[in-house]
């Protein structure tokens, strides 16, 4: 089966400064991979590179998504092809109604999948159902996108988008940070409900506690723009006990 994502020796920079220094990674359908690493190691940079943020430049290496080169696709083409990024810092959009935004996003990907547009009434039903699962108050639909949302509320709104858009490949960038245990449990249940034999996930975190709620198949450790170690669940436990420093010398 064609891998969902193959990253091959990717170097990437921001404002002329190299942040990713040769990343290679392969994620197959149905797999959940986790990337762990300290603040500043380049995890979000990788997430934005995958989502196509024009601010980040791939200077060498290649990325293939479901067998096709990804680099030349625009962010919206990637979204329409099933890539979804849950932002570490979701963006506030003043004056734009959240329900309207969510429906526009859903219709954009539905259109790309050859599905019919969903109208306001159908959308409301769907959104209510998903929000119920995330224990999210309906009032969030009537507010401006992320405006005045707490950190945790923003993260729920990201996962609401994940549940609505049902992407083929989801990148969750520190979705767990800023959440209390209850919220973490609820959000993880939402994410886990989407796991199946075809959908793939890349989960970025620097807390091992997330792994109590999600079960990644593979764990990678990123230090200074490189993946220095790859392993199974036991790697997370070792990191919990010993930290990252034992990896830095190697």
């Amino acid at each position, binding site marked *: 089966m064609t891998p969902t994502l193959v990253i091959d020796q990717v170097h990437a920079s921001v404002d002329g400064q190299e942040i990713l220094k040769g990343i290679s990674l392969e994620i197959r359908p149905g797999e959940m991979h986790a990337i762990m690493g300290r603040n500043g190691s380049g995890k979000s940079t990788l997430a934005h590179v995958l*989502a*196509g*943020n*024009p*601010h980040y430049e791939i200077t060498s290496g290649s990325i293939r998504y479901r067998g096709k080169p990804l680099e030349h696709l*625009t*962010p*919206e083409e*990637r*979204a*329409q092809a099933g890539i*979804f*990024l849950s*932002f570490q810092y*979701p*963006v*506030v*959009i*003043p*004056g*734009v109604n959240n329900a309207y*935004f969510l429906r*526009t*996003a859903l219709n*954009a*990907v539905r259109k*790309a999948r050859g599905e019919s547009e969903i109208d306001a009434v159908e959308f409301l039903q769907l959104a209510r159902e998903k929000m119920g699962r995330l224990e999210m108050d309906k009032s969030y639909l009537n507010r*401006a996108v992320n405006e005045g949302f707490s950190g945790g509320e923003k993260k729920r709104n990201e996962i609401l*988008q994940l549940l609505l*858009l049902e992407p083929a490949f989801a990148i969750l960038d520190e979705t767990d940070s800023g959440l209390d245990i209850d919220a973490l449990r609820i959000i993880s249940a939402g994410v886990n409900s989407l796991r199946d034999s075809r959908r793939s996930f890349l989960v970025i975190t620097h807390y091992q506690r997330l792994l109590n709620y999600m079960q990644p198949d593979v764990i990678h450790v990123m230090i200074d723009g490189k993946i220095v170690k790859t392993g199974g669940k036991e790697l997370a436990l070792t990191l919990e006990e010993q930290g990252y420093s034992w990896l830095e010398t190697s």
Partner: protein
Amino acid sequence: MAGNLLTPKAVAERVRSLPDLANRVPVPDLLDRIQRQGLPTLRQEEWRHNRRVFFRPEDLACPPPPPPDLPLRLPFRHDDWITYPILNGYPLSPASPEITFQTPPAESGAARDGYHTLNRLFTPGDHVLRFSPRSPISKVYVPLLNGHWEQLTCPAVDIRLEEGATVDLFLHHLPGRDGVSLRNTAVSIHLGRGARLRLFTLDETAPDDQHLTTIHIVQEGDSHLGWVLEQLTGGRSRWDLSHRLQGEGAELELDGLGLLSGSGEGDLHSVITHHSPHTTSRETVKNILPERSHGIFNGKVIVDPGAVKTDARQSNRNLLLSADARMHSNPQLEIYADDVRCSHGSATGQLDPDQLFYLRSRGLTPDESRSLLLTGFARDILDRLPWEEVRSYSESTLHAWMTDLP
């Protein structure tokens, strides 16, 4: 070009070729006044950011009264609103107890500026809208338009709300459609004690149009003015507001939105004077500037001596959509009283790349993302419109404007 400049001398010369005028107004007095006031030049502080002054001597003329059954194409119609169109400065509807057309026009002793006096000189008469609490009509739509006339028109509208009156008014400058629209409009508004006016002024200009509106507002005690001013301009639109809060408890809420296009110019010059204690003003002005457009916001707030407990807030925010667009923003406070609350702020920037990327990462095209962000930017201004039918009309103009963006 110097020969084409509108100077007091050029006005006087032009007027000599228009003998009809002398039957209507005291021409020598008004020419004297223009001579004293002068007409603006780009060297003056209040005009130095404009690309040109308004009108040329050869634009000055006296439009004839419109034929009685001229077909009108009005873009806004709604059963709740009484429509009172003003064509080339003339009425088209018969007078009513609330609305009359007065000729000769009032001479108006208030010395505003040369353009205002020019209006006094050339206006065919004053449209006087007078409301009491017992007036049976409460919603009036006043479209101003030109018919088969490409020279200057000088409409004059005088709105008076007696003590306790409540009125909704939609004043709509239509753009030139079959030809260019040159309009030098004078508006005066007087709100008596406790009167409430909800006002929407929409100024639309097409590329060669020039609309200059001089508006003079006085609010007595406990009166309230909620005003949305929209400038939808591909030509030139300038509003000169002088506003006086002259009774305790008077309140002004002014929300401005400039949607520019092409090499259009949108200009709001406002002077808001807090003359009495416990008066409140809030002025929020936003502009969106694409292509080679040019925006000017000059907002002065004056707090007179003794106007304690004044609460004045002003903000101006502008979005530049192109490297060729320009915005001049100049908020000013002049405070001569103690114990007041005044704030002002101004910010001009571009569309936020993080917001654009966020929307695109959800599958929206750059155009869709931009439309959503622009609608979001304009939203809080349009939301101030208190009437559903007017709000949806205004939203349709916003969407048409966005569709035409390059």
